């Protein structure tokens, strides 16, 4: 009885050093291998070779919307044209697309059948293309994305020599 009491009151002395060593090593490993990734998203484009020729006889399709993006020699955007009529900026382009396809975005809607054909100058900065795709492919309404035209294709590249 006396012996037991003395055992209980005796402080159990665990050696913490190895555990703390390992714990710190683990922490250092996780901190160093931490990579902060920025949120990225994709615009899915399906472009088989020779799709333009194959899609032509399909009369289900509404005629494609032609968006022409011309560039200045330095690569900045010179002008936007939608179906040969000039558009002042990407916001107006979006309004025109909404006028064209309406707000109906379900399957088999006009927006689903319409195709956008991007005709860009070779030197144009790529960010303008992404802005154009953003304008035609959807809008943000009350924090939610409303999809517009999803079918996007490019005209063949024009090499300036």
């Amino acid at each position: 009885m006396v012996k037991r009491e003395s055992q209980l009151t005796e402080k159990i002395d665990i050696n913490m050093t190895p555990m703390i060593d390992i714990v710190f090593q683990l922490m250092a490993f996780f901190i160093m291998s931490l990579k902060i990734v920025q949120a990225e998203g994709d615009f899915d484009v399906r472009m088989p070779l020779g799709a333009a020729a194959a899609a032509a006889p399909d009369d289900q399709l509404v005629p494609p919307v032609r968006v022409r993006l011309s560039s200045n020699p330095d690569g900045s955007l010179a002008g936007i044209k939608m179906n040969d009529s000039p558009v002042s900026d990407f916001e107006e382009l979006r309004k025109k697309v909404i006028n064209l396809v309406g707000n109906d975005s379900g399957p088999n809607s006009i927006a689903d059948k319409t195709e956008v054909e991007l005709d860009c100058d070779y030197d144009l900065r790529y960010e303008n293309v992404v802005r154009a795709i953003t304008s035609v492919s959807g809008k943000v309404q009350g924090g939610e994305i409303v999809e517009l035209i999803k079918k996007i294709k490019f005209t063949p590249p024009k090499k300036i020599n």
Partner: protein
Amino acid sequence: MARKKSRGPANTDIDMTPMIDMTFQLIAFFMFVINFTEAEQDERIQLPSSQLAKPTEGTIETPITLQLTNSGLVVYAGELVKVSDLRGYLEREKTAMIDADKEPTSATVIVRADGRAKTGEVQDIIKLCQEKGFERFALRAKYDEGH
């Protein structure tokens, strides 16, 4: 002298519990946020931003990542290559896919192009991929909540 000796070991008795608690919490936090997936993000590339570029759900089946830098070079598998040299690499990707009993059409080519790169070069890359039978493309952009 005797007093000093008795004080010495008593002082080293620090309460480790809060520190270990915190350290374990930190470890748990870093374990959760760590991302081992090979997100191929090259700091040389400044992606264009778009508010519609929502992060993709799920994983892309057989992705081929091609990153186009500002200067018109392509980062492919960590190496800088010319656009014209890409044909050989894509051919290799294609044969690897056929060997694995997969159609080249099922692969997705992720195009991570710099916002300042020329559109024509992006189109050249897409054209090269099309010639090899790849037809699914994902144009990658940075998600931007702002404008």
